[in-house]
């Protein structure tokens, strides 16, 4: 298989260089654009397997760039932001970004996000999402096993876990989860979500206080991490 191609759109040369070194060292091919215009042209001339997009571009609002890309580009987009503003991150995720990282980030984290985004875009349907000695989530039989033992989950608990697990590695926003599981009338009832997440953790985590599967993205949402790199 040829190297996956990643397009970096960021106006800071240092950041582009750093990303390029990290990515090349991990067997990705890299192209870049320093402005929104350059990035959009490069993307359309030669669509990459994944785009890393900085939201703070000089010539155009990053959210608009994202919107434009999403009109035709279906591969993963990971956004980079300096602001920790949760609203902007949530907006970007709602606009079609697959994931986000805020600057400064750790390289390990970036690579994990890229791997998971690429994996999700060519996911194999029908296989158990997680299949380890510790945890098995089988969407076909709608069963969850912890250390070989069948877990008793309520319907809501199962739906929530299945939705998160189907999007393995991807962050899902509070609103998205609330709408999908409880319905559009519940998007502001985040306390339901938190309670159910806490209950799920007590059932599937080895230590509910130090979760390995159901991770919190503070102020944004939750991320299920099933496949270990």
């Amino acid at each position, binding site marked *: 298989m040829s190297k996956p191609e990643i397009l970096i759109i960021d106006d800071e040369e240092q950041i582009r260089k750093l990303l390029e070194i990290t990515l090349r060292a991990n067997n990705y091919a890299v192209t870049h654009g320093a402005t929104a215009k350059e990035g959009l042209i490069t993307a359309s001339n030669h669509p990459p397997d994944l785009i890393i997009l900085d939201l703070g571009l000089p010539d155009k609002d990053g959210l608009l760039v994202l919107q434009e890309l999403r009109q035709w580009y279906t591969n993963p987009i990971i956004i980079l932001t300096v602001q920790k503003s949760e609203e902007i991150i949530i907006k970007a995720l709602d606009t079609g970004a697959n994931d986000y990282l805020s600057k*400064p980030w750790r390289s390990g984290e970036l690579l994990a996000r890229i791997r998971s985004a690429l994996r999700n875009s060519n996911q194999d349907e029908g296989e158990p999402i997680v299949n380890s000695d510790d945890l098995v989530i089988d969407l076909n039989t709608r069963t969850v096993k912890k250390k070989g033992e069948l877990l008793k989950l309520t319907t809501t608990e199962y739906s929530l876990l299945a939705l998160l697990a189907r999007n393995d590695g991807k962050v899902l926003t509070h609103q998205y989860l609330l709408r999908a599981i409880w319905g559009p009338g519940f998007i502001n009832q*985040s*306390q*339901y979500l*938190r*309670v159910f*997440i*806490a*209950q799920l953790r007590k059932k599937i985590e080895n230590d*509910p*206080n*130090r979760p390995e599967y159901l991770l*919190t993205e*503070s*102020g944004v949402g939750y991320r299920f991490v099933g496949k270990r790199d």
Partner: protein
Amino acid sequence: MTSILNRKIGNNQQYLVSVLFILVTSGVCYTIAPVLGYKVVALVLLLAVSVTAVLFDIFPVLLSAVLSAFIWNYFFIPPRFTFHVGTTEDAILFIMYFVIALINAALTYKIREVEKVSRKREEKANTLKLYDTLLHSLSHELRTPISTIIAATDNLMSNNENLGAENREQLITEISRASFRLNQQVENLLNMSRLESGFMQLKKDWCDINELVYSIVKKIEDNKISQKITISINPNMPLIRTDKVLLDQIIYNLLHNACLYTKPDSLIRISATNHADILQLIIEDNGEGFPPDEVENVFDKFYRVKDSRAGGTGLGLSIVKGFAEALKGSVRLQNVTTGGAKFTVEIPCEISYLKV
């Protein structure tokens, strides 16, 4: 006091109140004039003008001075109920009354202006002093990690062959630590400017305290601290509704502070409970505590405990206090009798009825 009154009472109201005050005083004088005589009335009215001069701006005071002079003339100086003045003595008295009332008003006004100027000057000096402290601690706090990064990278670039693998590793670790420290300082500065800007918009949402505390402790432990942090929170503690970002920063700064200023292998304990609708957080350590005479000052901006070893801008704890107050709560520090410092944070907040 004067400035408070000025702020509370608008300009139009000042005119109204001073006129009313003079009228009421005159009314009282009218009843006692037959007993005390009109000359005493002049003194009482002058006193009333002086009182308005202490309380109000120059123009309402001048108005009351003029008004009281005419009232005195019309109602009290014989022949009464005319502006006619009978004797030369009374004419001189009236003119003197008028002048004294005006001087009185003007002098008081002048004194207050001088006060205002000197207060402004003092404030400016304080701000300058604060900036000075800020610049001083900033340049130190930012330069130290920057110097580390420059020196270490320089070393790695020019000396690469002579450095052993172990040294290289060490330099890289130092660069990493310095950058995290730098990031932390910038974070603190941003938080401080958020506080200073005066308008902080709270964003309240339901928050799982267990989750929050464990994630903060994990973040701190990721930086390879030697202290041991223990967490004691009821695993079924209900959700609370608060601004998670602010609460996060409060807990992080207190724990980070405890790690910075206690000896390696010290114990740090964090506990959280809710009593009615108050969230109480306690962060305590078994370090040396704070010097007793400095306990009061540790939350002041840029305050650093004398002769303290590790660095710090003196911003961390003042942010804790500022954020706790922004959440309508409080933070206090005690030295524990067995040694060590104990911070207690109390935040009023809505508690969820849902069972976790």
